[in-house]
């Protein structure tokens, strides 16, 4: 018991024999297995745990669960540190380290508390009214304000833990494993339904673990244990512990965050720390319980003020006395049971202050027993204390609750238990598009009609007796099973509970007036430091909508999403508007119901696995050869292959020159390849390309351009005719997926009558370009069943044959403008062919080249790619206007007559060379006529591609320039103010090398 002055020697459901050491704010403490950080701190007598967000007021532990607004700590240190963790949700483990946050130098002496001294100057929205002058100083103000805000600190290192996702399906998902949830599970499980039960605690049972009365004559927790055992034995039941259902999405899709290993110092090897479940449930039972709330009164935030249910939980579950001497302040019967349990745990109950003038219900009266003073019709009006509570002031309350009568009475105490009524947890119901309705009797919002296949049960529905919760759960579980198709599901009998008798009605009391002359803060929302005066000021200033209130004051915007503060805030707003609470309404309930780590949402698809990598069949060779890779969509393509000691540009120019002077080979497997078969294939091509296909001979290929429906160029590529009704289309790497979807749309939706079958064969074929004047000689060594002479296989010819022993296809096409071929073989043989080509080309110094060299070669030849195919250019802009057939209809043709598309001033593709023949044309430059014109300087074009041509030994570029084709020979200026460059350029034909095409036909 040493060091745990507030721990009882016996009781609770903790393991008194397993002591765990932990450190809080640098001091060593002890707790027991089964503790939370909060219960262990209370046991050790730690009262001040945190400082508040805005005023840096000392705060203690207010709740025992997820609703905790105040006791937020920085948990763990180093790479596993985590800010803003509710101490009430941390399961204690040996060696745990936690620290107070948002305070300096310490939680006991916080300089930030100086904010309290100027708090009068900080009403809600004070920043909107100030810091405006002088305007330039706002960044300085902001700098300071940002540092004051922010609560905890982010880790400084990457997260060492792993996180998992999983999809799940069930007939019935039951949210919450308390009395209602377990009952529902039993009912649905016995019916044979596939169910998932998710509970956010380490063990199932919820309040049955320690707070509820006996069931069937035995402690409630025994009933819970039997229920869990029965469920565990059912093959179709999945029980998930430490699992918070945080999102209720469309079509009964729910998201769960499971804390697999947060209760351990660190996860076991290969064990995820947390897991995201994405559940599709036919039916849902929401047994999410209810949250107790406080009252608004002067200084209602001191350490030592706690929800009555929380103090009861600490006593019953953890054998912890939350104080020595307590006062209970309530407006309902539930706090009486708490008072009795606290007394039984050894806490002196000085008085029960009941706001109701009359008597409580019989069960409550019995629980209280004799010897505890009870003041009816009274309220706690103020509290005393320095760093923690030392006394409360009590006064009689008038009938309407808006003024005090009689004199103040003072009770010395270090614990004030408050019970202002209960809020059913309607959040998930509301996320599922239900609209919570206000229940006057309960003074709370309860679930309204369901929109999705869900129902609430137990206290989540506003049923607060144990027998009621069990009955509710049984009925809801059976009903859910029936709706999920298990029509024979029966409602199991409800076990016997103690007769609790009729509870006396609660008194809807939200806020207690302060004693005359006392101007102290009266908090509505403890986490965001919003007071009653703040709410009243907001409404006075016109921020009367509940959404305006929230945004102006930040009420409910904290990490607890206003669990304890929202409803009192609404009540205060309603009163100041002279409206009732339902008229004021609620703000929207949004996911997540509890905060969820970004890691859990991200899962394993981060870092190197952020998106899958697509690799060609020759990828392994490229890696071994030391290629630098560049992402192209999901593909990784070799950018260049530097030899030892070689610089980037040396390598690129070497590769480029090799293609023009001898021979090179390039992996072009990433180009989209679409196999087209069927009797109407030619007709189909006619419709999707601007040019005509009917007359393309077998064994020939043709360049094609396709448009979007709005007349803008979509993609280009060559298509080959392999057989009478068999074509192979190629697309650009970037557009392969989009083109496939586009073609499938037209075939399936628009022209289903066409006899055409298409399938992507991009992955089937490894594709290797062989380019350069020596390419035919290399080819001759690779194949002996194809005559590759110019006569037998002219430019744009296609053949099938065998290459290094592998059957494949040979295309005589050229992107580089050289004599060139492309060989396709099944991908499983890609690397074999690649290596065979290297071998066959050895004597010609065959050179692998990457995308950089490819880019230079195609720029030299004036071929267009992404910079030119930018989604704004027409075929005519790019010089393909004459390809468009006037004799046939094709996709996009109907849009081409729009005036903007025929404007003679459109930007057209041109070549660009530096006027001085040597200055590099800056990539990404804009083109103007007068570089010295004042800004804004009208841009008549842009540089779309630019490089140094090692073959021409001069910089070259491509651009799109207004009326560019009419500007041949004109001098313009390529400006790149971003790089501080201006270059005079001469407009030329975009084909720099071999404009007559003699090389590629050689």
């Amino acid at each position, binding site marked *: 018991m040493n060091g745990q002055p507030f721990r009882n020697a016996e009781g609770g459901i903790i393991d008194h024999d397993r002591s765990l050491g932990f450190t809080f704010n640098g001091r060593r403490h002890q707790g027991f297995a089964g503790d939370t950080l909060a219960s262990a701190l209370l046991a050790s007598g730690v009262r001040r745990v945190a400082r508040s967000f805005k005023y840096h007021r000392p705060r203690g532990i207010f709740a025992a669960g997820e609703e905790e607004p105040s006791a937020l700590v920085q948990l763990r240190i180093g790479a596993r540190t985590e800010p803003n963790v509710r101490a009430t949700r941390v399961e204690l483990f040996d060696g745990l380290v936690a620290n107070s946050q948002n305070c300096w130098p310490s939680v006991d002496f916080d300089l930030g508390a100086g904010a309290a001294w100027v708090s009068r100057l900080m009403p809600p929205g004070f920043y909107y009214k100030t810091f405006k002058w002088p305007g330039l100083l706002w960044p300085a103000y902001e700098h300071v304000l940002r540092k004051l805000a922010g609560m905890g600190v982010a880790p400084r290192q990457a997260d060492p833990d792993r996180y998992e996702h999983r*999809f799940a399906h069930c007939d019935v998902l039951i949210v919450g494993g308390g009395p209602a949830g377990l009952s529902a599970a039993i009912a649905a499980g016995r019916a044979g339904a596939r169910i998932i039960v998710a509970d956010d605690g380490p063990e199932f049972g919820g309040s049955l673990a320690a707070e509820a009365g006996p069931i069937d004559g035995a402690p409630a927790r025994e009933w819970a244990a039997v229920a869990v055992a029965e469920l565990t034995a059912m093959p179709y039941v999945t029980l998930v512990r430490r699992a918070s259902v945080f999102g209720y999405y469309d079509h009964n899709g729910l998201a769960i965050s499971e804390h697999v290993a947060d209760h351990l110092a660190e996860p076991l090897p290969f064990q995820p720390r947390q897991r995201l479940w994405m559940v599709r449930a036919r039916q849902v039972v929401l047994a999410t319980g209810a949250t107790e709330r406080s009252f608004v009164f002067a200084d209602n935030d001191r350490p030592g003020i706690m929800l009555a249910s929380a103090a009861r939980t600490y006593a019953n579950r953890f054998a912890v006395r939350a104080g020595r001497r307590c006062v209970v302040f309530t407006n309902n019967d539930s706090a009486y049971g708490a008072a009795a349990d606290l007394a039984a745990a050894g806490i002196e109950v000085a008085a029960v202050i009941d706001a109701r003038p009359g008597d409580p219900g019989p069960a409550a009266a019995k629980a209280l027993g004799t010897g505890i003073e009870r003041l009816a019709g009274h309220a706690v009006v103020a509290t005393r204390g320095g760093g923690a509570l030392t006394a409360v002031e009590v006064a009689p309350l008038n009938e309407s609750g808006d003024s005090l009568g009689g004199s103040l009475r003072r009770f010395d105490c270090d614990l004030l238990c408050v019970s202002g009524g209960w809020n059913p947890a309607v959040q998930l119901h509301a996320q599922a598009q239900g609209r919570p309705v206000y229940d006057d009797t309960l003074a709370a919002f309860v679930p309204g009609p369901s929109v999705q296949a869900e129902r609430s049960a137990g206290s989540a529905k506003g049923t607060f007796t144990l027998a009621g919760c069990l009955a509710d759960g049984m009925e809801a579980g059976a009903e859910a099973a029936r709706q999920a198709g298990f029509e024979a599901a029966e409602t199991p009998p409800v076990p016997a509970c103690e007769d609790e008798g009729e509870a006396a009605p609660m008194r809807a009391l939200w806020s207690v007036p302060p004693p005359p002359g006392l101007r102290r803060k009266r908090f509505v929302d403890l986490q965001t430091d919003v007071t009653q005066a703040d709410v009243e000021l907001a409404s006075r200033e016109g921020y009367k909508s509940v959404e305006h209130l929230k945004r102006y004051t930040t009420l409910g915007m904290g990490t607890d999403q206003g669990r304890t503060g929202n409803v009192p805030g609404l009540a205060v707003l309603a009163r100041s508007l002279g409206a009732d609470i339902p008229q004021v309404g609620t703000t929207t309930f949004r996911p997540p119901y509890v905060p969820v780590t970004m890691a859990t949402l991200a899962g*394993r698809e981060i870092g190197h696995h952020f998106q*899958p990598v*697509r690799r060609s069949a020759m990828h392994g060779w490229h890696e071994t050869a030391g290629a630098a890779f560049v992402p192209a969509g999901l593909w990784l393509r070799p950018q260049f292959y530097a030899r030892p000691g070689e610089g980037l540009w040396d390598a690129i120019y070497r590769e480029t020159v090799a293609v023009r002077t001898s021979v090179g080979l390039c992996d072009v497997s990433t180009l989209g390849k679409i196999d087209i078969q*069927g009797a109407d294939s030619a007709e189909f091509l006619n419709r999707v390309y601007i040019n005509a296909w009917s007359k393309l001979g077998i064994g020939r290929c043709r360049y094609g351009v396709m448009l979007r429906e709005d007349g803008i160029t979509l993609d280009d590529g060559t298509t080959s005719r392999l057989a009478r009704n068999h074509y192979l289309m190629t697309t650009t790497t970037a557009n392969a997926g989009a083109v496939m979807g586009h073609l499938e749309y037209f075939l399936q939706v628009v022209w289903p009558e066409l006899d055409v*079958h298409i399938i992507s064969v*991009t*992955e089937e074929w490894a594709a290797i370009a062989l380019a350069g004047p020596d390419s035919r000689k290399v080819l001759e060594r690779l194949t002996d069943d194809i005559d590759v002479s110019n006569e037998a296989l002219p430019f744009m010819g296609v053949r099938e044959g065998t290459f290094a022993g592998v*059957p494949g296809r040979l295309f005589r096409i050229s992107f580089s403008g050289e004599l060139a071929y492309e060989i396709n073989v*099944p991908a499983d043989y890609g690397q074999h062919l690649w290596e065979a080509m290297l071998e066959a080309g050895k004597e010609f110094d065959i050179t692998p080249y990457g995308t950089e060299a490819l880019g230079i070669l195609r720029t030299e030849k004036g071929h267009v790619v992404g910079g030119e195919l930018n989604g704004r250019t027409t075929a005519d802009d790019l010089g393909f206007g004459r390809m468009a057939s006037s004799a046939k209809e094709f996709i996009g043709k109907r849009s081409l007559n729009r005036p903007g598309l025929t404007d003679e001033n459109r930007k057209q593709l041109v070549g660009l060379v530096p006027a001085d023949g040597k200055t590099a044309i800056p990539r990404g430059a804009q083109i103007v006529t007068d570089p010295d014109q004042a800004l804004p300087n009208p841009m008549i074009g842009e540089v779309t591609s630019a490089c140094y041509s090692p073959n021409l030994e001069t910089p070259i570029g491509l651009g799109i320039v207004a009326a560019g084709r009419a500007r041949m020979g004109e001098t313009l200026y390529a400006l790149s103010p971003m790089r501080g460059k201006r270059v005079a350029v001469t407009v030329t034909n975009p084909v720099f090398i071999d404009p007559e095409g003699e090389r590629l036909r050689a």
Partner: protein
Amino acid sequence: MPEMPQRCSALFDAYQTGTFGAVPEDGPGIQLAERRGLAIIHLAGPGGDENFRTAVKGCLGCEAPVIPNTTATADGRCLLWLAPTRWLLVSARDAPGDLERDLSAALASHSGAVTDVSSGRTVIRVTGRDARQLLAKGCPLDFHGSRFKPENCAQSILGAINVLLHATGDGTAIDLYCARGFALSMWEWLTDAAGEFGYSIDVAIQG
């Protein structure tokens, strides 16, 4: 003329047999093995046309299934439903080129298309008591035994990769087909995800 070389799997460099991950006392929960050397043919045609169906059956000995997400197997050849007019023919006993040629010939007088995609698909067999749990980490299908039954197939996604799943035999083994280019990424995904259950990588299955 050189000999026809060996086919080379996309996983060739990464494939390493052994046992990995957090292996429980009763052994690894997952077994992974690549199926190699298969003939995989994409078949397109009018599934509703009796003549077409007869021609397919005549050539292969097995029907082209018309019920979505089902398969038909005969004599070592399996036809997996892909779409109302598309199937994947998988054979462990044919050479890809032969099968493509035979089927093309059989369907020559019909509308349709026969396309060899043997190189374009990588096939990974997942077995073990946690096989379905493993797949549920990245695939939204309902893997419950009553929903994904023996000899069912389905196309879906695993992680961010398109995948065709086939519950072979009695359903304890699930074959995953993915595009070759994604094979290594999928392999990394699977082996990373399987660590939690403990897994073995077995010798690749020929056929």
